[in-house]
């Protein structure tokens, strides 16, 4: 049970993650579409989504929006949710993991209720490259991940009239030796998808790091909904 007296301005209130650990799946988008009544095919059919100009199926913006509502209801109960919502800034795709959090900006009493205002932030994590690498065992985890996040991707595609002939992906990072036979990337995401000015590119280990070899993922963090909420804290 949340206690008003224990909440402080500036602290993180409710938190939630959705899609972990393996990422959201298409069936979840369809279940939401059927229940919520938004049956736009871009949320259920990869061909329709691409024809509409997307690079694959995307989740409903209101799906993540509904999850903010869920987070707040789980925190204080349905009758105490006063207002929530915000701007939709980025898309969510199959395979993504979405995290939600509310940061308390103000606590006050009004109309006989104890209220909390929050900044709401929804961040979508997209994994777009996985690989195996080795490095000097003396490098710390933090150093390895920082080096991986500075890595450069090169994509070579040869086409013939029958379609794609060869797709070659290489990934090089400083002080890390990437096994070129064990790098896998999402082709759809290679095409002008990352917005360097708005996205955060980072790296993480897949499983536990051995001293000199490991599997890693390069992930992109993107704000998907940024907004506000006000809830009453029950007595």
């Amino acid at each position, binding site marked *: 049970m949340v206690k008003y007296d224990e909440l402080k301005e500036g602290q993180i209130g409710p938190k939630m993650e959705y899609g972990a650990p393996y990422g959201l799946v298409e069936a979840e988008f369809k*279940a939401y579409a*059927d229940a919520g009544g938004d049956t736009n095919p871009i949320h259920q059919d990869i061909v329709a989504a691409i024809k509409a100009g997307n690079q694959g199926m995307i989740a409903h913006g209101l799906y993540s929006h509904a999850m903010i509502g869920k987070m707040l*209801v789980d925190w204080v109960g349905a009758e105490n949710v*006063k207002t929530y*919502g915000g701007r*939709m800034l980025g898309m969510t795709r199959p395979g993504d993991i979405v995290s939600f959090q509310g940061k308390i900006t103000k606590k006050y009493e009004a*109309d006989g209720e104890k209220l909390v205002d929050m900044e709401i932030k929804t961040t979508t994590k997209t994994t777009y490259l996985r690989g195996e690498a080795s490095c000097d065992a003396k490098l710390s985890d933090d150093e390895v991940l920082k080096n991986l996040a500075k890595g450069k991707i090169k994509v070579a595609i040869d086409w013939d009239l029958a379609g794609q002939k060869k797709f070659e992906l290489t990934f090089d990072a400083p002080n890390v030796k990437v096994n070129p036979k064990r790098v896998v990337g999402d082709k759809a995401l290679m095409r002008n998808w990352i917005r360097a000015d708005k996205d955060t590119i980072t790296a993480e280990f897949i499983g536990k790091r051995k001293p000199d070899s490991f599997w890693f993922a390069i992930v992109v963090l993107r704000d998907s909904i940024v907004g506000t909420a006000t809830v009453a804290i029950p007595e």
Partner: protein
Amino acid sequence: MSRDFSSLIGLELKGTSFKVKKEKLVEFAESIGAKQPQFLDSASPIAHPAYANAFVLPALMKVTDAKAADGQPVIKNPLKILHGGQVYTYPKDAPPLQDGDKIMTTPKIKNIEVKSNGMLVLDLEATSTIEKSNDESKIGKVVVISGIGVVVMPGGF
């Protein structure tokens, strides 16, 4: 020549009616992973607050009916519409939504302008009111007020 949309500010669009069905309330709650029994009770569920998505979205699409001063639709290509944002405000005395309730959602254009980046931005406010219910005390009560941001990309208006 740029089109004049200023006469649309304050315009109330045609409302949309929506009937609440208990099966859909449970289905929606399950789709977002809600665990509270009041949303999942198949005999008599109440609506999760986020269920507003189901009846507000059709009202949002009514924006495609709006016509500018030149008599032409404001939005000429609905495929160019982006959902820019959505905020719900629940009045203190809003009753819970249940099976059989009928909701009327009426959107109003609060602002409309073409931004410097060439996008048309509409701010709508939609009020959702119970117009029919098995519980007469709920009739006329506002269940949610929605602020909706609609963005139309260049070429769509």
